[in-house]
């Protein structure tokens, strides 16, 4: 099962490699990892998406907690949370297909950020199911390039 783990860490050089190193040396799989400064500039928040059974997730939590630079670890999977991911996608298009693609983009409230003769680049942000559905629809046109930030999440209230 996929878990969303939110980790507060010291905002220092080397911390990211500590965390990445932990995942590789313990054989845990990271699906995605997003990191950025919090309201306190000395602290960063990492949102780590990891797949594993309960035993693995328990170890992920404990091993993260064990790292000296980790301040707080929260598995928010079972909590009420909001998550978003930002995706930039460059789609093949021709004068015939452009209209259809633009329609899809409008339905999903995505944004066109670049367009030329052969391609159209869209920006979409949202939860996983929305992004998945959008990508499924534009896939038949041919995706030339896909860039994703990885999910970030925040608990409600």
């Amino acid at each position, binding site marked *: 099962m996929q878990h969303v783990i939110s980790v507060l*860490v*010291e905002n220092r050089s*080397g911390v990211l*490699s*500590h965390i990445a*190193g932990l995942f590789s*040396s313990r054989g845990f799989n990271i699906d995605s990892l997003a990191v950025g400064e919090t309201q306190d500039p000395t602290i960063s928040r990492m949102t780590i998406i990891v797949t594993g059974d309960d*035993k693995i997730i*328990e*170890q992920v939590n*404990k*091993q993260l*907690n*064990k790292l*000296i*630079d*980790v*301040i707080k670890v929260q598995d928010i999977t079972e909590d009420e949370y909001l998550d978003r991911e930002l995706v930039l996608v460059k789609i093949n298009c021709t004068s015939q297909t452009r209209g259809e693609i633009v329609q899809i983009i409008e339905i999903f409230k995505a944004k066109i950020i670049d367009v030329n003769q052969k391609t159209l680049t869209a920006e979409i942000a949202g939860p996983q199911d929305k992004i998945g559905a959008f990508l499924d629809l534009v896939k038949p046109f041919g995706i030339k390039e896909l860039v994703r930030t990885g999910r970030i999440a925040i608990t409600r209230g």
Partner: protein
Amino acid sequence: MKMTGADIVIDGLIREGVEVIFGFPGGAVLDLFDRLNKSPLRFILVRHEQGAAHAADGYARSTGRPGVCMATSGPGATNLVTGLATAYMDSVPIVAITGQVPTPMIGNDAFQEADMVGISRPITKYNYLVKNVNDLARIIKEAFYIARTGRPGPVLIDLPKDVQRAVCDNYKYPDSVNIRSYKPVYKGHPLMIKKAVEAIEHAKQPLLYCGGGVIISGASKEVLKLAARCNIPCTTTLLGLGGFPEDHSLALKMLGMHGTQYANYAMHETDLIIAVGARFDDRVTGKIDEFAPNAHGNVIHIDIDPSAISKNIRVSIPVVGDCKEVLREIIKRIKPKKNPKWIAKINKWKKQYPLVYRNDNKLRPQYVIHQLYKITKGNAIITTEVGQHQMWAAHYYTYTKPRTFLSSGGLGTMGYGFPAAIGAQVGNPDRLVVDIAGDGSIQMNIQELATAVMHGLPVKVIILNNRYLGMVRQWQQLFYNKNYSYTCLAPTKDCPPGCTRFIPDFVKLAEAYGAVGIRVTKKAEVIPALRKALRTPRTVFVECMVEEEENVFPMIPAGASVRQMMGGMA
């Protein structure tokens, strides 16, 4: 006060109570060394940096105080790696200080540059690259704090040459440490302690299973008190040896792959495991699905490291905290109890399946260790290398006090014992320190003979020379159809003429280094040779030409269960 980086290091070490550093000089630590020989700190000059790390480890394990080692950048620092990994696996507090190329050159593939914080990341508890001399005092303070608190471990400080030379304008050594993200828990949760007490009171066949954590936390007295009060037999891991007096009637000695049969049977039958500072590693559990089937998950696990709990087996009562504090709380609440049926069963096993070796007129390695125990009356600090001799040292020397058995358990580092003995001797100048070694292992850090002789350290090394890398040979014999691929070190009687296998003459080698060498070829020579060695106030090698194909038993093959235990004699 104005102070340079190098002076801050010296001052910081003194303020942390350090009395000795094990190390080796080099270009990137010239500034540190320029202060060292003018400082009150004692410096033990090793002959290979790996020796420095193991010596700091032996010092730490035998005294309970952090060991300090120092090396230059690049190869000096990378030579520490095996020692740091050894200490990390066995939770030994070490502070390693390495030189680094000047900060502007970092990342330029400079001469003798290695990314030490990168390399040491998975084998240290924490590490630092010091970029600003104003951070140095805090970093030293934190390094010692992190190394010795919680679950101890090695901490590395990588110190670029320009930072050693830089001047800090307002140096003040901090009085306290505050790391917001690091707050080890020492007190056990009251609810869990209550549950643990109830479980012990209800258990019919409880078993104490003690690891290195008992020794680290100084909880031996508490373990004994609990065992005695509630009549609970106690087995220890390799690292737990000495944590429970093995001459006590409740002692089951070591368990696991080469544990005693009675300890393994007890683990198989127990209905409640009380794990104290142990981590259920694979050498203890064997096949995890068949481990302790009668406990049915009834496990109390006391450990200061939450990640050690429920890692390998499911635990019903986790107690995160310091072993000593938690046991004290349990003892306060627990009612005395007898388990006569259980004890009778255990005593029957002990009688039926004792640890035995063939005591004939041949020179058997087990006999040598047994005699060493008798002569020293168990009062020596024993270190070991890794292999058959290590297991025999665990079996045939009786450990009754903590910090008297130093061995690389987790990493299994050949070459650990001799430098560790040097470190232990430095930390315990009045004690007898003996390294029990094999002919393979001793050659891995033999250069430290020069260190021992130069510093006048009367370490005794007993080399059980069987002309084989014995433990690997044993596995080849048992599981690889006797295909002794590259494990034979010296020609045997079966060798074709012209066999070029070679073992040095350890007696001459010791003498060449200015130490004393004694060779033992017959059983009758063992006691006089050991007595002579112990009388000699110098570094002594005792080379015992023991039986070649002796095996370590009992043995549970890797990944098997107690049902596949091979008992008996070699």
